[in-house]
């Protein structure tokens, strides 16, 4: 393919239609259309739900819409956000995408430093996949927030707030990773290797700061039990992210490199790494549940989330992948394990956000667990099924990741294995 060189980077001379209307891009657009519909649903719920207050009730007592709103207030649930479960599947997806994406980047930077040449050859593609996931995570969180008021983040910033910590971090991290990709694309391996360490530290920084922010928010709230009492939770976040990151790398390798001679060795390397991290995660789960408050552990293990926990998380993230990859075999087993850990990893994050609230939700004095004993109403916890709009945004966020990756690949051939010079 004809190429143009700009600032040392070879850019594919590609037609507009081939850039934007390839099959993969069409798939991404379809997913994005789902996301747009999801955003519409969220806005509809946020701004056009039937809601009323006592003043309306006094002024328009016979208004049919007001009556319907009152009925909804008494017998139904009102509005987009339930106070007992303010953070839902969008937060789960944000955490999943950010941690997995930064995990991919971390592992590639680590492989660069540890001289795993095979990974170094595929580094550009993996890093773009990682950064695409980070953008998908940011897209998800943007839909969760009220975008119409976002300008206040800049007009009246509270730099001491935990949320503001993330912005400078992303502002440093994302350009750093993009610069690393630039160095790889321009075959500047020596500098790419030098930059690997800062990226390694920044990737860890993203994970640690992200955890700190959420833990800081939750730490005041005793109802959010999982967040405040689970031991060494930061490590859980990071290790589980590595497992799903290797899943992304496995699937990326299958889709991009399967016709290449290095494919089998690359998949074997991913298999061995995944086996290591699945083992560590399994150990963490066992030790974690032995040391955490037994009442809470029993609630997660045998309470309303047990099915999701055992089938959705333990089986898909640990047991099944372990069986697929424990013995060296055909790369397809690593691909199957990758699919499992990707789904299981998301279930893990979902459980984490929802399960964190699995003991009685309200922290209001006299209305939550303090009404009775600490754990005595464990069967009656509130679980809010995510709204359709939220589910559609989560599905659509995959489109964001695919679109970004494909655009990079079409322009810079990041899917190629690059030899060292």
């Amino acid at each position: 393919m004809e190429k143009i060189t700009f600032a040392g980077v070879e850019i594919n001379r590609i037609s507009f239609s081939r850039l934007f209307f390839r099959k993969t891009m069409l798939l991404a657009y379809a997913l994005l259309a789902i996301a747009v519909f999801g955003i519409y649903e969220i806005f509809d719920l946020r701004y056009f739900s039937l809601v009323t207050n006592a003043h309306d009730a006094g002024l328009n007592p016979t208004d049919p819409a007001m009556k319907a709103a009152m009925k909804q207030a008494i017998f139904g649930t009102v509005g987009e956000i339930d106070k007992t479960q303010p953070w839902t599947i969008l937060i789960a997806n944000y955490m999943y995408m950010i941690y997995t994406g930064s995990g991919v980047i971390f592992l590639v930077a680590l492989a660069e430093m540890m001289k795993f040449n095979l990974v170094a050859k595929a580094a550009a593609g993996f890093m773009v996949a990682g950064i695409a996931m980070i953008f998908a995570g940011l897209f998800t969180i943007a839909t969760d927030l009220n975008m119409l008021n976002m300008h206040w983040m800049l007009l009246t910033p509270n730099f001491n707030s935990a949320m503001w910590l993330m912005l400078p971090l992303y502002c440093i991290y994302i350009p750093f990773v993009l610069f690393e990709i630039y160095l790889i694309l321009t075959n500047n391996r020596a500098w790419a290797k030098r930059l690997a360490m800062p990226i390694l530290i920044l990737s860890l920084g993203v994970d640690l700061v992200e955890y700190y922010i959420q833990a800081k928010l939750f730490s005041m709230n005793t109802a959010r039990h999982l967040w405040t009492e689970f031991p060494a939770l930061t490590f859980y976040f990071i290790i589980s992210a590595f497992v799903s990151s290797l899943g992304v790398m496995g699937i990326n390798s299958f889709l991009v490199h399967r016709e290449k001679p290095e494919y089998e060795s690359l998949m074997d390397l991913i298999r061995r790494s995944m086996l290591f991290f699945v083992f560590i995660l399994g150990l963490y789960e066992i030790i974690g549940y032995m040391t955490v408050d037994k009442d809470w552990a029993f609630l997660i293990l045998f309470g309303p989330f047990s099915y999701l926990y055992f089938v959705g998380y333990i089986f898909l993230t640990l047991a099944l992948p372990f069986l697929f990859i424990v013995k060296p075999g055909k790369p397809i087993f690593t691909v199957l394990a990758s699919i499992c850990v990707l789904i299981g990893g998301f279930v893990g994050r979902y459980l984490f956000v929802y399960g964190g609230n699995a003991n009685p939700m309200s922290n209001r004095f006299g209305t939550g667990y303090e009404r009775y004993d600490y754990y005595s109403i464990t069967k009656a916890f509130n679980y809010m099924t995510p709204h359709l709009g939220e589910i559609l945004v989560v599905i659509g966020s995959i489109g964001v990741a695919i679109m970004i990756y494909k655009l990079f690949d079409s322009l810079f051939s990041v899917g190629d294995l690059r030899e060292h010079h």
Partner: protein
Amino acid sequence: MNYAMALDYQNCINCKACEVACKEENGVQLGAEKQRIWVGMVEGTIFGKPFANIYPSQCNHCLDAPCVSVCPTKASHYVLGGIVKVNAKQCILCKGCLEACPYDARFIDDTKVAVDKCTFCDHRFAETGTTACQATCPTKVRTFGDLDEENSDLVVLLKTRRFFFQKESIGTLPKLFYLLPEDEAYAKQSVAHSTNIYTWKDIKPLYDQARNKRSKEWRR
């Protein structure tokens, strides 16, 4: 000025007139979860004898409020008198304050598409000198006032009674003073052994110090 409220909860008869008055006065969205103030009930038994304690509650307008510090846009802020308020126009629905509030005193008001909470009825106390919940309470559970005014009803009451705070250990310096019941049996069933009981003399220097430190942030 440092506004606060004392709650003589032994007098509460759970009529919930305060909840209704608050919704009416402030135009709070209708719905069971949409409350600026609420009356909580703790049930239990002591040696087989059942009891029910009633605790009216609301935002504690903490002097060191975590909801204010987590807000990325300063939508949650202090106003004069140390009242914690939310500017609905600046709220980006990050829901951080909902999670951070130790008292679970915030909710989303869907009529404003923003977080909402108790304001100590600051729009009306210049005129009436009190809040809607205090004005409507038939058993005088609530006493609203200024901690800096030595002769206010609130300070006079606090000088004569002992009191405690909810979740005091979190260190947010809450400003809802729960008065220790004068009835010994009610005090025993409604106050945990671990709860610290204070007098006005004990607490005043600490609250004065915190007020001096934070009052620079209090907007007019």
